Each structure stands twice: as C-alpha cells, then as structure tokens.
C-alpha cells in the first residue's frame, strides 16, 4: 500500500487486497457539458464496486474513462502499475496510445450491447485477442476459452455464431471473452439493461459467482438486489460527482446523503 491511496470510507472488508486501480480527479467535458466533475476511485484486489445513480449522471462516461474508450479531459488512471494521463492530443500521441493499450490489457470490459464479433464463433470471440494480443498459441488460447465458456455455462455453445445465441447467452460469451484476457479488473456497463427480463438472472448469477470467487470488478447497474448481494462497496453518482459511497447495507439501506435517499426512494417505488 502506497502513500497516495485514498482513505477508505469505513473499515475494509477482510478479503480485499492492495489497490489495483486508481482513478484521480477525472473530469470530462463533452463540448460545454461538464459531465464528470472530479471523480476519484481506488479499487482493491478482489473488491466488487457497484456504481448506481440516475440516467445521465455520468456513470457510463466514468467507466469508459477508466479504460480510455472516452478520453478524460483531466485526470489520470492507473491499473496494475500502468498509468495513463488525460491527453489533449489523444489518439494522435503515439506514446499515449501505447500506454492506453497496455492499460486496457488489464481491464476487461463488458458492454450493455454485448458487442460480440458477429463473424466469429463464441470460441473465436474468446481466442481472438488472447492469440493476437497476448500471443498465446491456439492450443493454450482454446483451453483458456473453453475453461471460461464452461464457467459461464456455455461450453456447448463454443462453435455457435452470436446470431444463434440469446441475449443472455451473448452477454455471457462477452464475459468469457473479457475473462480470457485474464485482466486485473473487470468493467461492466449495465450488462443486463439490454436483456429481456427473463434473461437477466442468468447473467447476474455469473457475475455474482465471479464476485464471490474474488474477481475485482466495477459494475454500473440498476439491479439493486444484485448490488446488495454482490457488492463490497456501492457508489452513488449524481451530476458527475460521487455523492456517497460505502458498504451496500449503508448506502442502500441507510443513506446519509439527501440525493441518495431521493434517488433510492424514487427508484424503489418505480421498481
């Protein structure tokens, strides 16, 4: 543990380890729209962090800033010792591009819309980056892919194309694809929001298992039950800042911040 870690709010759960992801003073403007106003986050090994908040509060933008799919306007991110700073030149700076790429190797991402490669089978989706980016040989990559496809319960779908899979199956393949890079941290952006209600459970179950097995993850979600079950820490965001964070019992059951309370009241009523 180094001196520049954030002080955790309250005591740490016993199973968490050292900090693997640091984000500091992340700000993001879209034109004049100040979407993120200085967000800080430390995530420790084996910690499951869930981000909640109303639509438009900047959750997705923040998550995408963590792996630079969105270039932050200000701030920096460090994952497993690889640090990338906000860079106004962005993609035109070769050194920056390479740093960002190495940072991404340690951050697996799962998208709301799955974004599986439609021209590759489930197996192909899972072996593509391990073979061509990590340099694994085909045998090793397929072993790994089969292991993670089995883990998400889709061993028998390895040779199917995405168009032949249900939404829940697609999202589970997408999770396996991210796991195959063996990243230090997993980023999920509302992974069940594009799913039919009856398919949500199978995806949440996989994610809950991952959390209990000690995967480090950051999840943007509207599934409060899931957050309560699987989160070590819940973060409530509004208007581009973190309003409140803490263990799920505290943030979800006894929120201190008025905005959190208002959000939960409205949200739970709607639910």
């Amino acid at each position: 543990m180094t001196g520049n870690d954030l002080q955790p709010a309250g005591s740490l759960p016993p199973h968490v380890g050292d900090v693997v992801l640091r984000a500091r003073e992340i700000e993001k403007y879209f034109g004049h729209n100040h979407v993120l106003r200085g967000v800080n986050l430390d995530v420790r090994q084996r910690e499951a962090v869930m981000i909640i908040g109303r639509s438009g509060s900047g959750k997705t933008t923040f998550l995408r800033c963590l792996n630079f799919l969105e270039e932050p306007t200000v701030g920096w991110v460090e994952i497993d010792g690889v640090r990338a700073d906000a860079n106004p030149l962005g993609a035109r700076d070769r050194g920056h591009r390479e740093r960002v790429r190495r940072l991404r190797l340690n951050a697996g991402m799962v998208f709301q819309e799955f974004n599986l490669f439609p021209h590759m089978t489930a197996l192909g989706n899972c072996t593509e980056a391990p073979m061509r980016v990590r340099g694994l040989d085909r045998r090793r990559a397929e072993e790994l892919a089969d292991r993670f496809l089995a883990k998400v319960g889709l061993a028998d779908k390895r040779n199917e194309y995405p168009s032949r899979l249900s939404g829940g199956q697609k999202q589970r393949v997408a999770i396996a694809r991210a796991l195959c890079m063996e990243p230090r941290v997993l980023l999920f952006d509302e992974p069940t929001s594009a799913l039919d209600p009856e398919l949500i459970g199978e995806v949440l179950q996989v994610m809950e298992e991952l959390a209990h097995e000690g995967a480090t993850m950051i999840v943007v979600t509207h599934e409060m039950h899931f957050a309560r079950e699987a989160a070590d820490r819940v973060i409530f965001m509004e208007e581009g800042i973190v309003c409140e964070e803490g263990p799920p019992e505290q943030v979800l059951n006894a929120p201190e911040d008025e905005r959190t309370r208002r959000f939960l009241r409205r949200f739970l009523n709607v639910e």
Partner: protein
Amino acid sequence: MTSAEIPASGSGPIVERIAAARRTARRLWRLEFALVWLALVLGIVWVLAATGNVDLEFVQTWTPFILGGVGFTLLVCVSSIIGAVVLALLGALGRLSANPLINGLASFYVSLVRGTPLLVQIYFVYYGLPQVGIILDALPAGILALSFNYGAYMTEIFRAGIQAVPRGQQEAAEALGMPSRLVFRRVILPQAFRIVIPAIGNEFIAMIKDSSLVSIIGLQEILWRAGTAGRPILKTIPAFLIAALFYWVLTIIFSFFQERLERRLARSDVR
C-alpha cells in the same frame, strides 16, 4: 405433396387447400412473367427481321469469332475488379484518415477520376503515359484504366461500408487491447466486406459493359471483334447486335449468381 393430390372440390383440411391455392397462384404468376419476356424478345427479333438486320449467314460465319472475345472481356473485368477493390480499400482508408496528406491524396484521386470520362482515362493511360516513359501494352493499360476508374467509385462504397460497421465493434476490440491495425484487419474489415459484397457485384456487372470501351485501344474483346467482323463488309449493325446479346447474357448470368450470393449472405449465420 403435389397439387395433383389436392381434391379439386376441397374436402381436405383448410390449411392445405390454402397452400395449394397459393402454389397455383405463384405458378401462374411465373408463367405470365415468362410470357412477357418471350413476347418482348420475339418483338425485338421481329423488328430486326423486318428492318433487314437479321442476316443468318453473317451470324453463322462470325458468331464464333465474336464469341472468342468473351474470354478476353472476362479476363479484363476480373482483373480490373480485383484492382479496383484494392484501390477502393486504399482510397477508403485514405478518406477516413485523420492525416491531411493521406486524406487529401485520396480525395483528389476520387475527384479526378469521377470528374473525367472513362474513355479519356483509357486514352490517357495508353497514349499519354508513354510520353513520361511508361509504355504499357493494351491489356495492362486497359486493366489499369478500368481499375483506377472503378476504384474511385468503389472508394465511396467501401468508405460507407466501413462506417456502417457499428461503433461498438471497434470499441470492443480496442477494449481488449488490440492495436488499431489489428482492430481494422480482424474486426472492421471482414464486416465491412460483407456489407459491400452486393455493391461490388453491381459494379462488376456495370464493368462488364464498360469494358467494351477498351476496344478503342485494340483489346480484342467482344466489341472490338464485333467491329472488326462487321465493318469491312458493312454489316456493323448485325455485328453489334451479336455483341450486345453477349453482354446481355453475361450480365444475366452474373446477376443470377449475385442474387444467390446475396440470399446466402442474408441467410448466413454471420448477420
């Protein structure tokens, strides 16, 4: 079950009677459709005969000679479409490039080629290039000119195809740590190709006819042979009619294959 087994008075189950009626209607439609074609073809032949343009002796003597140009026409077209695909790919990459030099070059190419007649371009390649020391035979000159011309038009097609690949595909690949070249080659390009294949088919059919223009530099394809056969004995109209018929039949054959290919693509697992 064939329609013969369906009782005419309709004692069978209602579903089968409806299906049988549909089949009959479909057959009738096809028959009428074919009759329209037959009538139109016979009409044309009658007009030609009435105007004294059907000269069976000429047809018998010269058809094999003109037919000999089909191979040449196909050679020119196949080579040129391959060249055009390569140029269009480079052109599209150029037009999508952030680099002003590359983008400028590509847009100049497209503008120049689209703004000048194909015939002029063929002349230029065959008669103009020798003045700067580049002497090409008629065949490579014709292929070069056609490739350049079609490459420019197809640049726009390819650009649209690349842009039609959903943004999430690139993001998913980048999030896996794939460098941009790999993202393009393994994720964007295969999907863009599927999108533009029907359009390439259309261009190929257009090219079959445009390739007649290279007869002007003495390439012995269909039209050149027709002219060579007809002109000395003042039988140009029958000769060109035979040529026209060959072009038509070629395009019909390729349209047939194109339709099948498109149907297969539409049906395939891969979107």
